[in-house]
């Protein structure tokens, strides 16, 4: 059996008066139920988009990420100013910051994680429902920041997985928004690998940790993700 794919038409704006009149007549016929056969197929195809369920779900998730209010320290103030009118985050879909971990998609660790607070953060993270993501905002939650001492956990990824690290002390609200956009692309399955992609530098990392270099399969997967992006 041969399957032939033909594209019948695409939804373009009419260029002149006759095309517009033709479009009007087609719409009238559709309403009356008079459109038949090839005309009907073309009409429908112009207005229907097909995709996989996974892509649709990811698109939905990415554009409505509800962060959890987890302000720890100074970065929290910049996070609040990202919520407010100038650097509005609700235009990207995060309309409401949910206080309950059961209702939130994502946690923004804004601020230094003290050793006394680390089990609390982990517990709150465990209470979140899948799928969930973590943004480590600022230098302190990414790597301990300027506080290399007994009281600060040197990076939140010592005790919980982190998806996006945002540098800065504190990062500007626009930085946080940029990181948020990267997370959105990650959720949609098109991870933005940044400069490694632009300069074709995947696989050139120097790994300070001995034999935990990425496997060739992982490198291939990364290259393929870059192509598909």
């Amino acid at each position, binding site marked *: 059996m041969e399957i032939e794919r033909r594209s019948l038409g695409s939804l373009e704006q009419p260029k002149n008066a006759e095309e517009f009149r033709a479009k009007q007549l087609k719409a009238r016929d559709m309403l009356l139920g008079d459109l038949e056969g090839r005309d009907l197929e073309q009409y429908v195809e112009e207005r229907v988009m097909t995709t996989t369920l996974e892509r649709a779900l990811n698109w939905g998730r990415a554009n409505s990420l509800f962060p959890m209010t987890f302000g720890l320290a100074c970065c929290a103030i910049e996070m609040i100013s990202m919520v407010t009118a100038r650097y509005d985050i609700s235009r990207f879909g995060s309309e409401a910051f949910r206080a309950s971990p059961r209702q939130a998609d994502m946690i923004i660790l804004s601020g230094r994680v003290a050793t006394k607070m680390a089990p609390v953060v982990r517990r709150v993270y465990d209470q979140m429902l899948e799928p969930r993501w973590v943004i480590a905002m600022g230098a302190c939650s990414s790597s*301990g920041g300027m506080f*290399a001492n007994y009281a600060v956990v040197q990076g939140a990824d010592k005790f919980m997985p982190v998806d996006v690290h945002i540098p800065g002390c504190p990062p500007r609200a626009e930085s946080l928004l940029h990181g948020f956009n990267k997370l959105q692309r990650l959720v949609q399955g098109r991870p933005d690998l940044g400069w490694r992609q632009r300069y074709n530098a995947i696989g050139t990392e120097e790994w*300070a940790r001995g034999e935990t270099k990425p496997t060739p399969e992982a490198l291939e997967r990364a290259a393929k993700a870059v192509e598909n992006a």
Partner: protein
Amino acid sequence: MPDAPGLELIAESINEVRDGTVVETSFEHDRAALIVDPEGVTDALRWLRETEGQSYTFLSSLHAADYLPATPRFAVHYELLCRDRVERIRVKALLDDPAAGNGSDALPELPSCVELFPTAEFQEREAYDFFGIVFRGHPDLRRILMPEDYVGWPQRRDFPIGGEPVLYTHNEVEAPRWFE
């Protein structure tokens, strides 16, 4: 601030109340300081608070410092303020480290001033938390900023600062990847 002769008079008057309380006076950077014997701290503070001409009724700050390697090692500073004349005076209690040399766990002690100045409650807890200085008579002496079961007195000078070394090429180590 009380000037140098005034400071001497204050020291004498306090020594009349309880002999040997004020060990020394010092006057530097326009600030007066009385160095007192730890057991007489509450007497000195009470005298400064209640005497008519002095009335240092506000305790601005209570903090401790570690003077290692000098002895006596610890000092508890009481910053007093008289709001009417806007004058400050510092009372300093010097404490020896009872655990020095003999490896015991003994902690330096002095009486608490919470009845005189209720503001000292949190601040004495902080001094205990970070230096191990025990305030006798404090209603609830336990750690305030560190976790309750922490071992060690973080802000002593011989306590290591902690943290991790930053990895450069010359000291790269293999860190265990916890998620594998």
